[in-house]
């Protein structure tokens, strides 16, 4: 059985991502690795990450993973999570501005903030459970009820350049895009590995997804 590979580039703890994937993929091997060969041979690739975009891109270049990720995202089921969603875009305002992988058109900007109903300013980071409104049908939404709760923690959001890439939206000081989908690529701002039943269902759908031929 081809392994599921979680890309390990030293940004954040990947143990819970791997454990959640193991919980939904029967006996299929789940590997946490930065080995380009292993990533190229994977059946499914997960690109997670927490932290700052600038350090993320630096690490990916140091580990020579930029091309490998681009190829994987184009050719096999590929799931980006949190920073692994943001890094897919062209530009980020984080760290004084930095380039992303540019696999999807659009940019990453700071959450705009806003006000609670009583006028107090919204807290940033956006931390906690929020509703995810599905923007288009997708095999990864199978069995995930519309407006399910998922766990978020982030201060930046994506602004896709192509509206048809939107797979879900969420409200926090205005509506932002919380998931994107294009071809073999699916990526989410929330943490499915920390989102209990809804998150495990999405991961289950991912590891059983054959992608787009």
């Amino acid at each position: 059985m081809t392994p599921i590979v979680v890309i390990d580039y030293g940004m954040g703890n990947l143990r819970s991502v791997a454990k959640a994937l193991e919980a939904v993929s029967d006996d299929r091997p789940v590997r946490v690795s930065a080995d380009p060969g292993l990533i190229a041979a994977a059946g499914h690739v997960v690109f997670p990450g927490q932290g700052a975009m600038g350090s993320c891109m630096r690490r990916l270049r140091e580990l020579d993973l930029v091309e490998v990720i681009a190829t994987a995202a184009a050719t096999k089921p590929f799931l980006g999570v949190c920073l692994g969603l943001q890094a897919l875009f062209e530009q980020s305002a984080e760290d004084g501005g930095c380039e992303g992988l540019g696999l999807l058109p659009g940019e990453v900007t700071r959450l705009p903030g806003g006000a609670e109903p009583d006028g107090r300013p919204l807290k940033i980071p956006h931390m906690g459970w929020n509703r995810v409104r599905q923007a288009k049908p997708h095999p990864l939404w199978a069995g995930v009820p519309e407006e399910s709760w998922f766990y978020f923690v982030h201060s930046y959001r994506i602004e896709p350049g192509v509206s048809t890439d939107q797979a879900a939206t969420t409200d926090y000081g205005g509506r932002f895009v919380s998931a994107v989908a294009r071809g073999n690529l699916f990526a989410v701002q929330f943490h499915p590995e920390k989102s209990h039943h809804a998150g495990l269902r999405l991961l289950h759908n991912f590891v059983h997804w054959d992608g787009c031929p």
Partner: protein
Amino acid sequence: MSLSRRIIPCLDVDCGRVVKGVRFVDIRDAGDPIEVARQYGEAGADELVFLDITASSDDRETILHVVEGVAEQVFIPFTVGGGIRAVADIRRMLNAGADKVGINTAAVSNPELVAEAAAHFGSQCIVVAIDAKQVAPSRWEIFTHGGRRATGLDAVAWAQRMAELGAGEILLTSMDRDGTKAGFDLGLTRAVSDSVGIPVIASGGVGTLEHLVDGVVEGHADAVLAASIFHFGEYTIGQAKTKMATAGIPMRLDYD
């Protein structure tokens, strides 16, 4: 705006066992932190906090096994606090699978640890725990070592400083209310929550479900932490969530 407020049961763990155990639903081993965590996840807890109160340094490693076990089986966020003194301690907890680490006394003796930890691991996993006591009207001070040692630090100013250094969240405990079941110190909670741009978890004093509502509505807390009312089966997480939702607070209710 549909971000839910969070309910967070807190478990004290000593030498790898839940202190005094829990008495809710039909649990096989009420002292097993992994089993208890799994049950709370199924019951709808939004997050969990484990406080390691192990006194002997020889037994400190046991918490790492607990963290590993929880991370393998419970898919909601959890924080581990107690005995965190250095970046190396934080790294061990995160590598074992904790999502966040709580820093308390060490933040007071070495505030730079918070900045260093946030730079290394990201603010999202750094929770600064603040134990405060009221010393004058509208004035609260930080105490360390389980509330025994006064520091002279003003709780509101301290919370702001911690946020500036990179804390991602504040876990705020009223030492006056802890264990009293008289409700949160709402003045303290509100003063701190309104003074920082990061989320604040209210802790200390919960005895009724109304107290949870008050913590959010009056105290402006982003999350509420409680222990005994849940552990001993006085109320379920579901009852607490329904009560809060009825009061108009956004809650994650449909979690089946």
